[in-house]
């Protein structure tokens, strides 16, 4: 199963590397949204709640783009049929797709978070670093699991581009609550976070539940 999953993942990453479709689009989108927030809020620098809210909402909206595109290449070129005709375990497909999305999100954040620090954030970003990295990682795992599930759910519908954001955004509200509340004290000048452990536990629990659910129900999606 791991071999199949890594083969599909390699294929996806090669396509992404050659077409440069998802990650650059997501990155560009985040930077544009920062500019929008700058003018919308009419603020030159943000901190605390506002900073963490802007950062997380922007990242989640960018994730919507990645999730919409996740099965797009297979759909458009008909590759999904050959993929499903091959003796590929659905679980392997899920693992590959979720890992691809996880890597896209990671790449996006490597660029988007420092850019946020540069453009909008008032306090120093590096002060928040080890904790922020842990929050980002945990949130990415949950986003990747939910995103792969939503993407597969929406792949067969007529209005894919419509269903993905409508479905994904309410589902990630608990993730946003955990991530934004955990990040908020880190982005405040001299802020300390006493509740960090609790929010990390929330993120971890969310990840665990949705990875398990997705693994359990993915078998019923995408078969003809």
């Amino acid at each position, binding site marked *: 199963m791991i071999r199949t999953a890594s083969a599909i993942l390699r294929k996806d990453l090669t396509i992404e590397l050659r077409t440069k479709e998802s990650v650059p689009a997501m990155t560009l989108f985040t930077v544009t949204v920062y500019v929008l927030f700058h003018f919308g809020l009419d603020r030159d620098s943000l901190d605390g709640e506002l900073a963490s809210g802007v950062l997380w909402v922007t990242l989640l909206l960018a994730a919507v783009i990645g999730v919409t595109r996740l099965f797009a290449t297979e759909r458009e070129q008909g590759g999904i049929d050959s993929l499903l005709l091959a003796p590929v375990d659905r679980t392997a497909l899920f693992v590959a797709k979720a890992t691809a999305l996880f890597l896209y999100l990671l790449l996006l954040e490597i660029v988007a978070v420092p850019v946020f620090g540069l453009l909008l954030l008032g306090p120093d970003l590096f002060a928040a670093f080890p904790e922020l990295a842990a929050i980002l990682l945990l949130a990415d795992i949950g986003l990747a699991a939910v995103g792969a599930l939503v993407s597969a*759910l929406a792949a067969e*519908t007529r209005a894919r581009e419509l*269903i993905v954001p409508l*479905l994904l955004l*309410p*589902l990630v509200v*608990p993730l946003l609550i955990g991530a934004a*509340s955990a990040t908020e004290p880190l982005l405040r000048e001299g802020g300390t976070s006493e509740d960090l452990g609790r929010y990390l536990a929330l993120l971890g629990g969310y990840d665990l*539940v949705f990875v398990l659910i997705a693994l359990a129900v993915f078998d019923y999606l995408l078969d003809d």
Partner: protein
Amino acid sequence: MYSKGFKPLAIATVVAIAVSFALVFFYAPLDADQGFVQKIFYVHVPMAIVALCGFVAGGIMAIKHLRSGDRSWDMRSYVAIHLSIILGTGVLITGAIWAKASWGHWWLWDEPVLVSFLIVFLLYCVYYPLRFSIEDPDRQARYSSVFAIAAGAFVPINFAAVRLAEAVTHPRVLSQTGGNLPGEMRLTFLVSIVAMALLFVTLWKLELTAKNASMQLKRLRTTLELRSAT
């Protein structure tokens, strides 16, 4: 197949609703600081509890559908979610009225139960566009079931997360669902829950029977058309 025992159930529902309204208006005491408007509590909270149970039940029926491959379970799950959404609309409206009357605002973001309910409601609203944008009936049933399971599991997680976020800033003193109600209020409240649950089951059966009948009619019509064509 769905109409078995419908008549006694319908009668029980009518009686339970009549009794619960009688209790609400003539038996339950007036709330000391909220007065008459507090009586909306006997509609609002049972409706919310039944709607949430309906969502989770829809998920359980969806599991049954995926395990057995029997499409009638998908129909049950669909009708349960459909009715829960209708109740959910009622919950949000009565909740807003109650909030306006007792706190002076139509909407309060620091009320975790209300906020969680809105998120769950928004998620389940996507059930319709998802379900009806898939044409193949078999696939429609399967995908809807997957949604119902994921969303059913999401309900408790979401409530826990919203409560966690609020607990830090707004400690809750009094639980809303009636942990410390006086006896007469509690009795009225329990009867109201039973009445609302019975109403839900009755409507659920009615809708299933209607859907089943119209499906059979359609099938008969196609057979008839085929036969008259040849």
